[in-house]
């Protein structure tokens, strides 16, 4: 395998052949990733291997909030939503699976998330797992299920900082 590299998504990149086995994730990259980036809704990063797109990850911001109206907030409860960095999608092309590329890309996404929170504070990284298999992948790397939100997992930014060498 050649030495894969990480690049920010740009308009000239040919995404049309991407096939991770989950059509929803393929379609999003091919049809929506660039528009989302232009609209400042999500940033997408590609793993390139020998000129082809081997994997991608998209990051955006989000929040975790209580369902109650502000006047009902209990004493001691934060009055504002908790800001998060959301890893909304992460996918590896079939031809590049089983090479730990997804794990290496997740590590890079966490570095990007920590860097983002160093600039504009966020408290958690939240991941949006598309199915049970994806959720198991994130649990294997130390992520914890978000209460009451199936297939969403999280880790405190401070835990990620403290786990980095």
């Amino acid at each position, binding site marked *: 395998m050649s030495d894969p590299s990480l690049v920010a998504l740009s308009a000239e990149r040919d995404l049309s052949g991407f096939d991770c086995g989950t059509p929803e994730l393929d379609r999003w990259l091919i049809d929506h990733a660039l528009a989302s980036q232009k609209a400042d809704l999500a940033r997408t990063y590609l793993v390139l291997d020998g000129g082809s797109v081997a994997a991608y990850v998209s990051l955006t911001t*989000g929040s975790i909030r209580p369902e109650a109206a502000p006047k009902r907030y209990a004493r001691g409860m934060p009055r504002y939503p908790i800001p998060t960095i959301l890893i909304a999608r992460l996918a590896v092309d079939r031809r590049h699976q089983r090479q730990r590329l997804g794990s290496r890309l997740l590590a890079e996404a966490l570095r990007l998330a920590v860097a983002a929170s160093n600039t504009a504070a966020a408290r958690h990284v939240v991941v949006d797992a598309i199915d049970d298999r994806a959720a198991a992948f994130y649990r294997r790397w130390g992520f914890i299920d978000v209460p009451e939100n199936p297939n969403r997992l999280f880790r405190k930014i401070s835990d*990620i900082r403290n786990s980095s060498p």
Partner: protein
Amino acid sequence: MRRDALSGGGSKGDASRLRSLKCLYNVRTVTTGIRSRRIDIRVTDEQDAVIREAAAAAGQTVSAFLLSAAEGRARAVLDERRHLVMSDRAFAAFAAALDDASEPVPALGELVSLPRLHRT
């Protein structure tokens, strides 16, 4: 009759359904401020009537009414994915855990020790 019902695009049922889909809206969408894209949507007579009536009631043109409704819904869908909601009780516990001392997580340590992907 049976053969007709089982045949493809030319069946009687299809023809009558297509007749009802005769109203065509042209909706211009906003991308970076300039309305350079179009969305074409076919609707039934009934849908056409109810949308026109509602747009008139709201004091909007049909296309402005459709655009505001669709854009609001689109942003809500995106919001659902980005913003997680918890019951008050779960949120209180979750928020309190933010103050816990953080400690190295072995699995995360292993993850970030994998070979780096170089940035270009």
